[in-house]
Structures are given as structure tokens and as C-alpha cells.
């Protein structure tokens, strides 16, 4: 127990924790929305995120080539916007594909919910493996050499060629807050705010809440639930794409299994805040990120994940349906 370390570095731990937590929260939105509408743990959402991270890295490789370089955040901002769009498109497409291939056939056949979970697990394996075998796949279509920069060493860590050098933006309590962290936090807050307003104010959002509340009544009222479900997946994909961009800004490298642990964390965040609740995902994500950092400072980094899960269990004991608890369907119209 190293309290002095925690006390001396509290600002840094809080800021970086919030930044990581913001990424968790963005990914958690995908879990929480799908859960709200379908009561389904979309296990493959982690792969939606992972494909987003690769989209970001590929955009950078496409523009810069593979030679590593270092830049400040300001210099790369244009490229980041481009990769943000790419990641959001790729993630949304993967999410859409998932819904089409892994879920809709099951819903049609009225498969039990647990079976849908198995299908999601299968999709997750298949997507992750496909990414890990992308050199082979490129070989089949005869593009192995042309795409070498993108597919070589498919199972290794794939780094963004541009390492973003964090600059100090301002100082709080002796710690220089980095522009990267600030950007990550602000950008994800903005995305979440946009999503929240979208779900609250638009016709589509109303449809989503209606399906979450009672699919049959919603159908009777003329809500096209198939469209709503597809849209929910796409929205989750868009958020995961944004999270992927921020993740690449902060971490800078990815691999075919990068989604798994992050997905588990994000799902934990969603449950922590109350699954099915959009604002809960934000609260859960930030809380998880910060407490992980504090826990790592207190007990050592090797206990970081243990702290996260113990926190989850403790909170669920006190509030069995998460911190904010309320579901997507019960939110005020």
C-alpha cells in the first residue's frame, strides 16, 4: 500500500485514468445500446473496435508509409480526422455485418438468448482470426506483395507509424496535463453528448427507446424493429470507431487480439454504470479508468485488473443493477 505515491501523483493518475476511462466508455456504449434493445451481450463488439484501430493505423501507413516518425498532436490533427472517419466507417460496417450475419438469422428463428451469445462468441473468434490471417487472405486474392505494408506479420503488434508526442498543455498541481489526454477526454465527451441527444431527440432515437421498452408494442405502433436494431448496431459501431481512433492516439499500436481485454473492460464499465443506460456507460467508464489507475498506484500495476473487478463486484453488491441502473427503455421520452 503506497499511499504517498498515490497522493503525490494524484493529478496525473486522475487525468490519464479519465482518458482511458473515456475510451472504455465509448466502447461501452456499443454494449449498452445493443443490450438495451435486444437484451443481448454483443460479445463481438470488441472486434468492431479492433477493426477500427486497424483502420486508423492503415490510414496512417497509407499516407506516411511504414517509416516510423514522431509528431506532435497539432501536426497530425488533419490526418487524425481522416482516420477518424475511416475508423468510424469500418467499425460501423463490421457492426452492420455482425447484425446481419450473426444475429438476424437467430432472431428470425427465435433462438434462445444464450444461443445468440454463442453466435456472438463465434463471430468474435472469426473476426479476430481473420485479422490475424490477413496476410494469407491477401495471398489468396494475389495482393500479398502489393499490400505488404498492411498485412505483413499479421499476428504481431501493428504500430501506428506516427508516434504522437504529447505536449504539455497546462499545469495542475505540478503535473503538466498533456494535450493528448485532454483531446481524448473532450472528444469522447463530445461523441457521447451527441449520441445522447440523438437518442433523446430524433425519431430514430425514440424508436430505439420504444423497442427497448417493449418490442411488441413498438411494432404495433409502427416502429420497424429490424431497422432500429440495425441502426443500433451501426451507432455502436460509430462510437467504437471513434474510440479506436482515440485509442490509437493514446496507445499507438494494435493487434488482432487487442479488442478482447478492452472489450471485457468496456463491458465491465457498461455493467458498472447500469447496462442499457447510456449515461451509465459514461459514469462506469470514467470510474473504471480512474479507479484502475488509483488501484495500480496503491497495490502495484500487476493488481490493476483485480482492482477493477473487485470494484465491480462491490458496487453490484450495493447497487445490483449498476450505478445509474435505469435502462434505455425507461428513459423519459
Amino acid at each position, binding site marked *: 500500500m503506497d499511499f504517498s505515491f498515490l497522493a503525490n501523483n494524484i493529478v496525473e493518475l486522475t487525468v490519464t485514468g479519465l482518458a482511458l476511462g473515456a475510451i472504455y466508455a465509448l466502447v461501452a456504449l456499443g454494449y449498452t445500446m445493443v443490450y438495451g434493445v435486444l*437484451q443481448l451481450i454483443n460479445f463481438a463488439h470488441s472486434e468492431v473496435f479492433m477493426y477500427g484501430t486497424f483502420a486508423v493505423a492503415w490510414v496512417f501507413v497509407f499516407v506516411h508509409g511504414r517509416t516510423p516518425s514522431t509528431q506532435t498532436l497539432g501536426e497530425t490533427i488533419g490526418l487524425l480526422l481522416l482516420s477518424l472517419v475511416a475508423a468510424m466507417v469500418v467499425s460501423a460496417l463490421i457492426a452492420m455485418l455482425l447484425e446481419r450475419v450473426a444475429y438476424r438469422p437467430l432472431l428470425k428463428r427465435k433462438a*434462445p438468448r444464450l444461443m445468440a451469445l454463442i453466435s456472438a462468441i*463465434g463471430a468474435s473468434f472469426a473476426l479476430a482470426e481473420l485479422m490475424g490471417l490477413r496476410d494469407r487472405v491477401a495471398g489468396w486474392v494475389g495482393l500479398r506483395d502489393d499490400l505488404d505494408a498492411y498485412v505483413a506479420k499479421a499476428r504481431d503488434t501493428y504500430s501506428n507509424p506516427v508516434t504522437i508526442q504529447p505536449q504539455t498543455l497546462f499545469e495542475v498541481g505540478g503535473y503538466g496535463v498533456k494535450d493528448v489526454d485532454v483531446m481524448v477526454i473532450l472528444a469522447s465527451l463530445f461523441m457521447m453528448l451527441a449520441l445522447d441527444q440523438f437518442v433523446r431527440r430524433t425519431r430514430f432515437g425514440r424508436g430505439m427507446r420504444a423497442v427497448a421498452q417493449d418490442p411488441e408494442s413498438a411494432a404495433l405502433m409502427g416502429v420497424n424493429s429490424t431497422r432500429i436494431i440495425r441502426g443500433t448496431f451501426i451507432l455502436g459501431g460509430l462510437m467504437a470507431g471513434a474510440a479506436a481512433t482515440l485509442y490509437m492516439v493514446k496507445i499507438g499500436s494494435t493487434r488482432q487480439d487487442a479488442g478482447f481485454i478492452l472489450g471485457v473492460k468496456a463491458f465491465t464499465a457498461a455493467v458498472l454504470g447500469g447496462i442499457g443506460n447510456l449515461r451509465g456507460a459514461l459514469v462506469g467508464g470514467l470510474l473504471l479508468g480512474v479507479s484502475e489507475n488509483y488501484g495500480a498506484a496503491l497495490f502495484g500495476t500487476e493488481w490493476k485488473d*483485480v482492482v477493477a473487478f473487485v470494484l465491480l463486484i462491490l458496487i453490484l453488491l450495493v447497487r*445490483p443493477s449498476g450505478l445509474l441502473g435505469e435502462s434505455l427503455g425507461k428513459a423519459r421520452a
Partner: protein
Amino acid sequence: MGPVRTALDAMARRWAGMPRGARVALVVLLAAFFYVLPLVRPPVVTTQQIDFGGVMFGIAAFALVAVGLNIVIGYAGLLDLGYVGFYAVGAYTTGVLTSYQFHWSFFAALPVAIVVTMITGVLLGAPTLRVRGDYLAIVTLGFGEIIRLAVTNVEWVGAAAGIKDIPHPPNIGPDPEPPFGTGGLFTIPSLSWDGLVPSVDTGRETPFLVFGAVSAIPYYWLVLTVLILVLVADRLVKDSRVGRAWEATREDEDAAELMGVPTFRFKLLAFALGAAIGGLSGALYASSQGGYINPQSFPLLLSILFVAAVIVGGAGNRWGAVLGGALVAYLPERFREFSDFRLLVFGLALMILPVYRPQGLLPPRRTIRARAAQEEIDELEGRESAQKEVL
């Protein structure tokens, strides 16, 4: 998939219609078949690239785990995504007691491992089983991770390096004398096949009964025996008041509680029994041929595979769990020639299966009846969607 589907259903129906004596005889025959299977080494089925006995051990161990998890998921309806935690507790208890800290014999450590795992199950279950269904999934998942990280970081149980030299179960008959004495009471040759013509292969002999490095088959026999005993116990429990209480709790917890079923206590019992079987298989795994465990032997992914085995097989049916466990363990080994692609293919298979067998390969008879009835009702009401169907 179509013909397979009808064949499976037809088999299940025929099975249900058989007289009791015939069923018992068939089960005995089937068990005998599985005992000799790694010696017969039938073509096509046998894995060529890796030791078939070892694969059969893996299959039996996976089936045992699936039977245990089936109690939690299939009978009591609790989604447990951290079952590997119990498996690890069982394995580590055995490792610590027999090798790392103490030097107990295998059969002394085994019951302790089971009891310790059972207590772990109660300790985890008592506070968390009040949490609603899907929240339980993530809590258990967290538990599995906590166990893995704890054994990675605690020096007393070997930390990241793990525990090696875990003793094997005691031999029957004389011990092997290196370099050439195989030990055991006698040795059993296996068959080798040239096309469809079998011949006795004296180069591949299994000493009866030596748990050593020579052959994995004795370990397989041990696990298979344990599996059969557990299946018998499972049947006795399922057909008792306890099994009915689980079923009632799973179908409608409030109604069960009103009818006087102490649902919480029965859920906890399911959790503890499931944990005990997980611990048992973990203990067997720890003292298997390799005699070595480390934290990497218990990844979260394994929990997911366990759940997949139970649900693919048909949650709630012990034979379904056995079949599912066997398939999940066997298929990736059998199709090693696709080496790099086997996980991809496995993932695709998990995606395709639910479309054709939404209830699992061998669903419990009750589910089949319930589904038929539900379909009739739906047809009468002319309803299209029934998304929110429960387990």
C-alpha cells in the same frame, strides 16, 4: 445440416422410446466403446499429428467440465462466464498440496481440492447470486480474471512460473524401471490400420496401469471413470427434489419462491456443485501427464469455450453437455492440418450452428416439448416475433 438435424432428433426420440433395460445395456456398451477407443485408433477419427490418447484425455476432461457447468447454466439457469476460476482453484490446490508447498499424495489432495473449490463457489455465490442474471455473467467473468491474476502475482502459489512436478496418480502394479521396463500388471497393444484392415501394433503399448510419460491413455481412463461417476451422480441429483427445485427456479424465480422453494439456497447449491466438479477436473488436469500448471493454463478464453461447449451441446441435457464438451475439445485437434485456420473455422462453426440448431445439438426433452407447444400457440395467434423468449 438438415439431415444431421433430423438424424439427431430421430435418435433422441428413439432413445426415449426404448425400454429401460435396453437403454442401460446401450450405455454400458457405449462406455466400453469409449474405454477402448484410444487403443482401437479407428481411421478418420484418430488424430494423426498429435498423440490420440492425449486428445482423448482432453476430450474427457472437457466433457467433465461441461457436465459441471451444465448444472450451473443448464439446470439452474445461471450464466457463469468465469468457470475457469474454479478449474484453476482445483488445479492450484492440487499443485500446492502435492508439490509446491506440501508433498501429499494425489488421492489425499483430490478431496481437499474439491472441498476448497466448493467453498470458493459458496464464497463467490453467497454475495453475488442476488444479482440479476446478466449481471451475474460479468461478476463471474471478473472472478475468473481475479483468480488468474491472483495466482500470477502470489509467490506462495508459484506466481508466473507456475507449479511443476505435480505427482501423477499412483500406479497399479510395479512401477516402470527405466530404460526398458514399462511397469504395470500387463501391457495392452493398440491397433493400427492399413485402410480398413486392422493389425496389432506392438510398438504402441499401454502399460496397465502406469501413470507416466509413456502413454496418456491411463489418464484418459481415469478421467473417463470420473466422468461416468459424475454423470451418475448428476442424474440422481437432477431427478430428485433438488433438480425439480432448480427447474422451477430457472423457469420462474418468483413463482418458485411463492411455492415454497428457497430459490437462493438452491441457486447456491447449484453453484457449489458446479464449482466442485470444476475443481475436480482442475485437479485431474494438474496431475495429468505434463504435471505442470501455470497461470496461462487458465485464460478467460477457456471459460468462454466451456460456456460454448454447454450451450452448443444443449444446455440442460447432460448428454448434450458431454457431446458439446467433446466436440469443442476434439474438432480443433482433429483439424490440425488447417493449423492456422482452425480457430477461424471454429468461430464460423459457432456462428452457423445456432442457425440450424437454435436449441443446441441435444436439447433436453422438456425444451423440445415446450418449443413445439410454443410454436403451436404462435401459429394459433398468428404471431411473427417472439424475441424475448427465455432460456
